[in-house]
């Protein structure tokens, strides 16, 4: 890319990483028992807890991916950040307080305690690990992308750095230290995205708020040179004379060439120089949206242009209902002192996320104005990193560029830590031991290494899409289990197991086909790329129907369980056998 990262970015990333380790080590002095490790002894106030939840939640997908998607697809993908935030409203309305009152440590604990089934517990463990790893992959890959964008380091370096730092930190400190780290990360991320945004707004304003939704596709507003890092096929809307240095369309080129409209193959390392006013070519497969189509709803379908309405509703369902099923989100609720605190914490989280998500949209939109060349390679995930330098230039642009790089690294570190804590939590209690501190450390090492190995293998996997698929799996498995488990007396262990397996198998199949299979068009493509709209209803239906068919096996102590879940703790009801 001609627009390169700031020279201060690497030092900023190092500072964030060292601070993370330092705060983690500070917290370590307080971590003593297993309970400290897993749920921070439940002594964290709502304000701290909410900052920590938000810090943990704002991942590579939120910090980089949302802006990248907005830049590519426009209005339709605004549902991603809205859904990421609205997931906490669903959590608040249906899950937060009862889940805390259940007193269970982890999702498998909840499943077993509510329905008394070991089989259900084992499958819950399986899905916690699957969702956790699925969500860890894009964090590590985001780290690889960031370091490559900023320093030119090979892709695997960033992934390994984040993977190792997080694994060591979690294995040594557990969650108590992580709570401090996460709370710090939220405020760092907010600062990192909000301060440059303020300056970007000034630049945009000084240009008279240039319209982003005009009839044209983005154009270069000055002569721009673009270096292609990985081989790519681009589509030209109209013939163009440009200067090419490298290997393109099967031949060595050095100098001006006239390209016809249509496809052009460009090899890695080639430098393209576009004249002022040229239309920006788009990577093959990415529609060249005019400003009008980009700005209007249902124009791009967020990458599913054939059936935008279905894709939009499926996305809404996955994000609204998937949040409550993400293991690293739920584990935080056990650190609230009681059910009411859990509710208040969630409300603060809604506010913190609402403020944060105002900004990625702005970056994505302004990216079309100031860094349109990202559309050539399709790597719009880098827009947040490159925009400050491109739009502001000079020392200010470089300093702000370093700030967003630090924020991005905070995002990978915090989300990966949270995921690792929850995955190692269930691994250490259910698979690899009995939940001692030593088991937890061993489990954390395994839980961190597996996705690291996979991430180093798969170079190109779309960050935001994998995250969306993780939401779809969570919404199709743990969401129905939690909601029906909390509110419906008729749920049976057989019904829950059948529903979780049905929703999990269907959504996982969709994930695997989408990620590893070929591109599918039409209905099969959209049904697999955005599976939630059919897998979530199927999961709920199977839970209900099978539970009704096995109604004789409703747990006999269901009345007491309902009392425990819904009565305020201060009454002390349902908590001890009456004397």
């Amino acid at each position: 890319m001609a627009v390169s990262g700031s020279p201060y970015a690497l030092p900023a990333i190092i500072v964030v990483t060292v601070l993370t380790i330092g705060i983690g080590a500070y917290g370590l002095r307080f971590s003593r028992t297993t309970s400290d490790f897993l749920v921070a002894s439940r002594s964290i106030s709502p304000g701290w807890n909410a900052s920590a939840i938000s810090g943990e939640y704002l991942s590579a997908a939120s910090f980089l991916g949302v802006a990248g998607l907005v830049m590519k697809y426009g209005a339709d993908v605004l549902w991603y950040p809205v859904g990421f935030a609205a997931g906490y409203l669903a959590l608040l309305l249906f899950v937060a307080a009862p889940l805390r009152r259940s007193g269970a440590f982890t999702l498998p604990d909840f499943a077993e305690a509510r329905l008394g089934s070991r089989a259900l517990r084992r499958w819950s463990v399986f899905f916690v690990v699957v969702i956790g790893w699925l969500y860890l992959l894009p964090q590590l890959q985001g780290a690889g992308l960031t370091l490559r964008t900023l320093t030119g380091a090979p892709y695997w370096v960033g992934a390994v750095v984040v993977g190792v730092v997080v694994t060591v930190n979690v294995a040594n400190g557990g969650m108590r230290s992580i709570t401090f780290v996460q709370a710090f990360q939220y405020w760092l991320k907010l600062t990192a995205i909000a301060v440059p945004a303020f300056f970007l707004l000034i630049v945009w304003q000084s240009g008279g708020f240039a319209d982003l939704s005009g009839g044209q596709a983005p154009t270069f507003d000055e002569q721009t040179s673009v270096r292609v890092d990985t081989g790519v096929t681009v589509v030209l809307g109209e013939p163009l004379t440009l200067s090419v240095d490298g290997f393109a369309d099967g031949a060595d080129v050095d100098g001006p060439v006239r390209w016809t409209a249509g496809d052009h193959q460009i090899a890695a390392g080639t430098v393209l120089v576009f004249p002022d006013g040229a239309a920006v070519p788009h990577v093959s497969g990415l529609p060249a949206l005019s400003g009008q189509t980009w700005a209007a709803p249902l124009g791009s379908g967020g990458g599913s242009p054939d059936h935008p309405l279905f894709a939009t509703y499926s996305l809404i369902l996955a994000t609204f209902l998937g949040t409550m099923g993400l293991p690293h989100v739920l584990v935080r609720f056990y650190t609230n002192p009681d059910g009411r605190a859990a509710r208040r914490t969630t409300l603060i989280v809604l506010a913190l996320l609402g403020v944060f998500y105002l900004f990625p949209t702005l970056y994505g939109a302004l990216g079309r104005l100031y860094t349109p060349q990202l559309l050539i390679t399709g790597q719009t995930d880098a827009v947040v990193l490159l925009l400050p330098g491109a739009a502001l230039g000079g020392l200010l642009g470089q300093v702000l560029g370093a700030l967003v790089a630090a924020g991005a690294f905070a995002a990978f570190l915090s989300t990966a830590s949270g995921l690792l804590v929850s995955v190692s939590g269930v691994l250490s209690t259910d698979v690899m031991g009995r939940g001692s501190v030593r088991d937890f450390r061993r489990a954390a090492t395994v839980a961190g290494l597996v996705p690291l190995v996979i991430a180093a293998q798969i170079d190109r996997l779309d960050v935001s899409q994998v995250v969306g698929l993780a939401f779809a799996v969570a919404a199709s498995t743990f969401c129905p289990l939690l909601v029906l488990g909390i509110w419906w007396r008729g749920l049976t262990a057989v019904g829950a197991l059948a529903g979780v397996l049905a929703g999990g198998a269907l959504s996982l199949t969709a994930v695997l086909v989408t990620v590893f299979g070929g591109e599918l068009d039409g209905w099969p493509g959209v049904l697999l790329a955005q599976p939630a709209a059919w897998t979530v209803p199927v999961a709920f239906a199977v839970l209900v129907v099978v539970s009704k068919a096995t109604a004789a096996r409703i747990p006999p102590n269901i009345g007491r369980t309902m009392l425990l879940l819904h009565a305020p703790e201060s009454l002390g009801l349902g908590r001890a056998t009456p004397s």
Partner: protein
Amino acid sequence: MDSLEADGGPAPRRVRVDLAGRAVRRASYSRQELEEQTQVGEVLIRGLVRAQLALALSLAGVVILLLGTLPIAFALFPALGDVYVLGLRLPWLLLGILAYPLLYVVGWLHVRQAERIEDDFSKAVGPTQDPETNGPWQ
């Protein structure tokens, strides 16, 4: 309390009744019924769960009505996408900015109402008695 439990006993003892004392006894009686899963206890807890669920569902309905209908509205009336309000296209204003305060307000209403429902339940059940706040399941 034991006086109230003596229903099936030989001869009910005469007890002195004053208003305050009666309220306390009445409340503690509910607590015991809840703990022992009697029918009265069942009704009390079912009422609590139903009230909380109705609250959650109605607030979810508000969000579905205000946010969930937007894609259909944009599909049926594409012209909505071209309407400018405060210098922004309507979809960008609604989804990029206004959705977040809406989610917060709905959440705030939920917290307030859910705590009210719990307070009413607590009043019906009675004063706190050896609170075992953080007890584990079972």
